[in-house]
């Protein structure tokens, strides 16, 4: 999560409360990936995840005085991210209902989307989409972002044992779903 010599979260939060830009920037740098992962777990869309994560940092700054335990800033922030992401999904669902069916909407591909192998990304996204939201959050925070069980448990307000259990089932489901994917973990193992 953070280097040991780096300032603690509570220190950064207190400084950010006083308007110190560097402290706020460090908080963003520290948690931007986790915020994005959680937002992506909820929205299932990279564009929406980016919007929700960025907005969440701005909301967090506005409400920073309400963060009663600055040493637990991460969990507090992730709650904001989840709520913002769910609101975004709700709004988009309403918009889609009012406007066009999702299949009829044409999305302009971003440069990175063009560069990626579409099939690979789609399979990954599909595999993740097959998981419950909480399992998506846990597997991304743990295996990609490197959060510890205890940190995830605090952030998601779950018992540590539940986090471990969700992680186990998430990995299992992902491996099964990614089984036929080129470059998937077990596929490479079989080739070897």
């Amino acid at each position: 999560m953070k280097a040991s010599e780096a300032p603690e979260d509570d220190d950064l939060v207190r400084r950010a409360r006083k308007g110190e830009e560097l402290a706020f920037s460090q908080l963003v740098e520290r948690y931007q990936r986790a915020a994005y992962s959680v937002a992506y777990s909820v929205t299932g869309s990279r564009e929406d995840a980016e919007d929700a994560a960025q907005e969440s940092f701005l909301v967090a700054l506005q409400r920073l005085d309400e963060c009663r335990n600055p040493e637990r800033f991460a969990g507090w922030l992730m709650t904001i991210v989840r709520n913002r992401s769910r609101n975004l999904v709700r709004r988009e669902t309403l918009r889609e209902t009012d406007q066009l069916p999702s299949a009829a909407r044409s999305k302009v591909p971003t440069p990175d989307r063009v560069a990626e192998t579409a099939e690979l990304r789609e399979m990954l996204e599909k595999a993740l989409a097959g998981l419950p939201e909480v399992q998506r959050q846990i597997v991304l925070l743990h295996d990609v972002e490197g959060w510890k069980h205890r940190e995830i448990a605090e952030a998601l307000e779950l018992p540590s044992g539940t986090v471990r259990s969700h992680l186990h089932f998430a990995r299992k489901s992902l491996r099964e779903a990614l089984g036929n994917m080129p470059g998937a973990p077990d596929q490479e193992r079989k080739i070897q």
Partner: protein
Amino acid sequence: MRDEFDLAGRTDEMGRDMELADVLRRLAPEHADPNYWMRFREWVVREAAGELARRRLVAHLTVSDVMSSWARALLPTAALAAALAGIILMRGPEDHLQQMVSVEELLVSDLEGETIPATLGPDTSGPAITFASEIF
């Protein structure tokens, strides 16, 4: 059929499933755009500039700043009130009576003629008017 999921040999020292992590990282924004997180942070910090500035302003306000801001509005008002009170006190009660007299004078000064008929006045000059019936 795939082998049963097995953590042994696939995790790092933190217990992360490195193989899955490698695959999932392909979904991460920086996979296609190495500067993604820098731009992400810059956007957030730029958008937060107003709120940060507001917080700096509030944080720099000390007790003396608050008092002096009060004083700026309060002192001239208090000084004016004190001056008015002083003037009133210095003029004293006599001036107050004189003022009342002068007000009475002012009330009658512009009236034409006598306010009380001369015949009924207490010190009418000239010959006294007497009535026969009053002389015994």
